[in-house]
């Protein structure tokens, strides 16, 4: 085995599914059959993805570990490497290394209610947890998803999530800030508005949340109002990353007391509440 920790393995893009503007879903499979077999991840973990000839970036694994073989990544086109990825046709090769990060503490969460609150791109890492919980439905009590986006056209996984609204073993609440003149007969309002009609047994619930910075502020406030302990609020943090393995320093928070790539990206609110520069 190579002693180079930063060496990616080859993987192939088997399918590209455009979802909303500048957000494509990439279905990827390792080239090496043994790696396909041996690769194991936890919901909430990420990989370092290399676009050959362009560079490397951290991307959440958006598929559940219960769906093996193909890994799914939802990538927003924003900069140099993501643009290079968007130029690749189906069947191209990529580099992947990982999985990295701690992932959600699923052993601890089992037997509890699960509340997932997502804003915008925050649905991407939480989708892995959602499907993990649905595929292990008996391990969890009530499952609630609250997902808010700016407009219907920006809702990720919209059709997949709409099929969940009719399931009677979970509650799937979707909302948009603004219909923006598009077809939508669901809720209108911000994600925190969805709390209004829902009762929580906060002592027996884990809340998993992910979204833009301002989203955290309001959602955490709501959860605290509803009696959630700080240790039961799980959040996925995003920081600049280079190595993904706790060495390059870029992802440090609180004077590098924690490195998001290895101590996170999933933190309880309690873990980071006293830390500077976090939210």
């Amino acid at each position, binding site marked *: 085995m190579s002693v180079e920790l930063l060496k990616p393995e080859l993987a192939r893009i088997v399918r590209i599914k455009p979802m909303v503007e500048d957000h494509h879903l990439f279905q990827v499979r390792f080239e090496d059959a043994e790696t396909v077999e041996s690769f194991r991840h936890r919901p909430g973990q990420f990989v370092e993805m290399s676009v050959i000839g362009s560079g490397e970036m951290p991307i959440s694994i958006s598929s559940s570990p219960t769906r093996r073989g193909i890994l799914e990544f939802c990538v927003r086109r924003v900069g140099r490497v993501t643009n290079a990825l968007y130029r690749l046709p189906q069947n191209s090769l990529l580099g992947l290394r990982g999985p990295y990060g701690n992932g959600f503490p699923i052993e601890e969460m089992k037997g509890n209610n699960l509340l997932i609150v997502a804003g915008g791109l925050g649905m991407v890492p939480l989708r892995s947890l959602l499907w993990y919980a649905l595929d292990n439905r008996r391990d969890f009590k009530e499952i609630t998803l609250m997902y808010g986006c700016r407009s219907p056209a920006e809702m990720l996984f919209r059709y997949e999530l709409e099929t969940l609204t009719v399931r009677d073993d979970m509650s799937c609440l979707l909302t948009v800030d603004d219909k923006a003149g598009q077809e939508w007969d669901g809720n209108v309002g911000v994600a925190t508005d969805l709390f209004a009609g829902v009762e929580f047994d906060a002592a027996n619930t884990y809340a998993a949340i992910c979204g833009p910075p301002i989203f955290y502020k309001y959602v955490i406030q709501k959860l605290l109002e509803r009696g959630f302990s700080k240790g039961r609020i799980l959040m996925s943090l995003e920081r600049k990353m280079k190595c993904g393995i706790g060495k390059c320093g*870029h992802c440090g928070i609180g004077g590098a007391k924690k490195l998001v790539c290895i101590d996170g990206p999933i933190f309880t609110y309690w873990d980071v509440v006293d830390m500077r520069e976090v939210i």
Partner: protein
Amino acid sequence: MRIIKLKKEHLRDFVGSLSAFGKLYAPQARGEKSFVLKELKDLSNLRLDYRRTILPPKKFFNRPDETILNFSSDNGYQAAADANGGRRVLFGLHACDIKGLEILDWVMRDGYRDEKYFQRRERTAVIGVSCEPDESCFCLAMQADNVETGYDLFLSDVNSCYLVTVRTSLGDDMVNANQELFQEVGKDTIEAFKKKTHAHARKLDDMCDLSVSQMPELIELEYMSDIWKDYAKRCLSCGSCTMVCPTCTCYDIRDEVELDQQRGTRKKRWDSCFFPDYAAVAGGENFRAEAYSRFRYRYLHKQDGFVAKYGRSSCVGCGRCIEICPAKIDLRDVIKSIEGVT
């Protein structure tokens, strides 16, 4: 532990013999006042009177700039051969730098153990030598004035000879290969050694009026203080202080691509938390956009975050950052300002 005596007149012979144990590196002059650790090709260039080298010995293990992978669009990523994996002997390291390497080891071992780093470390012998402090040294305050581990041999200057502490089996081999150069330690030498040690400790104590014991608490309490902003006004965000620091480990990863866009190399290069783009992410968000927040971060890490994680500061008081800073910012002044003792 074995302690023996090497007369100064035998030093060169001994150093010369060490190349049998690997490529030999030692402190040598560069220009008028600077020193560097580089391959010792001519024994007469050895300068054991140096104060500090420009770059610390971390450069041998964490290279400033190195190719880690070669890639091509059809073959994927292949690990580059390690050009720094051969046997080496670093001669003449001071206690603070040996401590610095130990701290580097903790970081490289934590979580994902960096095997390449440890292969390099394991193939490199370290021979320490006692030092004379100058006005930028404050190793005493950082508990790095003395080391009991982290070296194969340590030479303590006692007037006309060195007391040589043999710490490892490899160090023992080095001595045994040159038995005729060494002697047993006599009573006079022991007395002289005690005197020297005492005088050295007194000198360090006189020079160093710094205390960092409350820094984590004080940094927390003074987090919003204008002190950071005042210093940051002078700071050029040049990153020199982090480059020369024996325990700063940040690096950047970037690809260099051939013109055909099909092949290239992936490089690892020293980076600095002072650089504006250090914490900047796609879409324009920057977690430390302001110069003062980056300036503060260095102290937050070295004097607080590192303490929380490893039980001590990552600063060893070598004084390199003080000597190199183009804005003449002295880390000791910053600490004193935070402590309110200026």
